[in-house]
């Protein structure tokens, strides 16, 4: 019985972390798949979202759920401005320029947050209903982790339905698979991309808020987790929602387990596995070969 509880502990903790990874990274995967744009500033949008959400709660007394909605809307709006004014100039530019531009943007975001809010870690106080433990029959577990898993599953289902069952989803899938063909069929890629970018950044904001409790929220956030988000996207495959979902859960559970049993060098395995995987399948575990 102890053994079962141990494994359940590991799985639940890892899944909760994986859900946050998924919510943050899914937008990055789709926008990278759509435009081939190397967006290293994606974590910055997650950070800004997290700050908006936590500040709305701490300073304005907004409840958790409406604060999440505010974070989503604010970040989506900001990202549209960035996308139209700046990102769109670099779609056809070499990768290096995209890398430089987005690294620059990350620095500006870090400095901006430090100037406006301050360099300290911003604490998130969960609403009382989500604190404490919940009974799962054979064991009890942190309520918030269970909430996160539930939210993640619901979002995954919603995104999947939107992706597979709506006209827009079909357009995105078409554009990811073959952009030129999609364009010549009359799909307005530019508009599609703006909408996807805004939605993806909004999702990242939600992830920033939902994950603030255990990822922490400080100005260095976008650099601290940059590699993690990129690994998820690379493992999951570009532009694949289901791929990113499985990759997030996989890496979430792996990371959680390794941190517990090998606190010294667990990350080595994640880097090593990612290298081996990318050499074996450059398109990622769930991506389709180019």
């Amino acid at each position, binding site marked *: 019985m102890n053994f079962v509880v141990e494994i359940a502990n590991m799985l639940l903790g890892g899944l909760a972390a994986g859900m946050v990874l998924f919510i943050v990274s899914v937008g990055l995967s789709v926008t*990278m798949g759509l435009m081939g744009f190397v967006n290293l500033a994606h974590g910055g949008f997650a950070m800004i979202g997290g700050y908006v959400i936590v500040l709305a709660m701490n300073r304005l007394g907004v409840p958790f759920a409406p604060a999440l909605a505010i974070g989503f809307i604010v970040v989506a709006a900001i990202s549209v401005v960035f996308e139209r004014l700046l990102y769109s100039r670099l779609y056809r530019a070499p990768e290096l320029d995209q890398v*430089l*531009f987005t690294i*620059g943007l990350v620095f*500006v975001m870090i400095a901006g947050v430090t100037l406006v809010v301050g*360099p300290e870690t911003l604490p998130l106080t969960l609403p009382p209903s989500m604190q404490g433990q919940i009974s799962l029959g054979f064991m009890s577990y942190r309520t918030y982790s269970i909430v996160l898993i539930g939210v993640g599953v619901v979002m995954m289902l919603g995104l999947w339905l939107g992706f597979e069952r709506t006209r827009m989803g079909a357009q995105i899938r078409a554009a990811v698979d073959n952009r030129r063909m999609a364009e010549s069929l009359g799909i307005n890629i530019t508009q599609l991309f703006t909408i996807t970018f805004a939605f993806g950044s909004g999702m990242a904001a939600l992830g920033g808020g939902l994950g603030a409790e255990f990822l922490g929220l400080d100005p260095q956030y976008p650099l601290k987790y940059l590699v993690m988000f990129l690994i998820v996207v690379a493992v999951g495959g570009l532009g694949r929602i289901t791929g990113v979902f499985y990759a997030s859960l996989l890496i979430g559970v792996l990371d959680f387990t390794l941190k517990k049993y090998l606190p*010294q060098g667990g990350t080595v395995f994640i*880097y090593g596995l990612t290298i081996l995987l*990318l050499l074996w399948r450059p398109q990622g575990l769930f991506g389709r070969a180019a």
Partner: protein
Amino acid sequence: MSIVPVNSDNPAAHALAVRHRFRWWEALPWLLALAFYFAFPRYLGFGTELLITILFAISLDLALGYAGIVTLGHAAFFGAGAYTVGMLAKQEIWTEPISGLVIAAAVAGAVGFASGLVLLRTTGLTLLMLTLCTMGLLEETANMAADVTGGFDGLDSLPIKPVFGIFEFNPLYPNTQYLYVLGVLLVSFVFVRMLVYSPFGHSLTGIRENTLRMHAVGAPVRMRLIVCYSISAAIAGIAGALWAQANAYVNLSVLGLDRAATVLIVLVLGGYGRLYGGIIGAIAYMVLSHFLSKAYPTAWQLGLGLLLMAIALFARGGILGMVDDLTRRFKERKAPGSGLP
């Protein structure tokens, strides 16, 4: 097609035939570096750091600017060199500095060769990720193997023998370090300069500009890239080794994303693929950083970010690219119609 002799009247052929020759102004940076030694004895520590950054940036220029290998993990090789010197010195196995550099270059070059062999099969985002992960792997390994690497704290007070058995490294008065690093930089620079003007260097530029065509003309593209990556790694390793010797310590910062991003910024700021971009970029970056980053860290980061965005959007050639643009415009105004720069 006929082969044009060097002293032909065709200005384009002439420009191509003589472009590898040394020009008078190429002695200037070295004279200035010597002048710096006498003029600012109190800033020699800063000067040593600057020279090491230049060497590191030049090594990246070879891979990124000439061969077009977009990497975010070049600090892996800087760190490999630094840790090689650090570990050998700490265990008192090898403390002689110059042969230490050779060992460090060999180790870093071997790491570059091994990782290049597998990494350079990929391009684009995958390559970017793989370089990042390789660096992360080395960083975590160095963190884990605390017995030999000192883990998070690193290795300090490394015993390094005097250069040529005469000139001692003194951490408080880094005169020896400065001249030693300057000498190594000069030798490495001349080597890289020779390399990029050689047929090998030209084939790298060809691969950068049009990989498909280089395949078509029968160039061994992958092998060229791997060799270039290994050489670049070896030079980065020398830079790291110099860093460890000059500071007499080594810690995890030599392997971090920070260092890899900084050297990329330095190179792009100066202008990549231009040989002198690393020098100009390192001077501009280090001087600005030295005076601004400690006094106004946030404003420095904000300014750096805006600068990077501006370079990516408007000035892809960096500082040297802007200078080129200006001189071209100036020349065109003077003699309208003469197309060649």
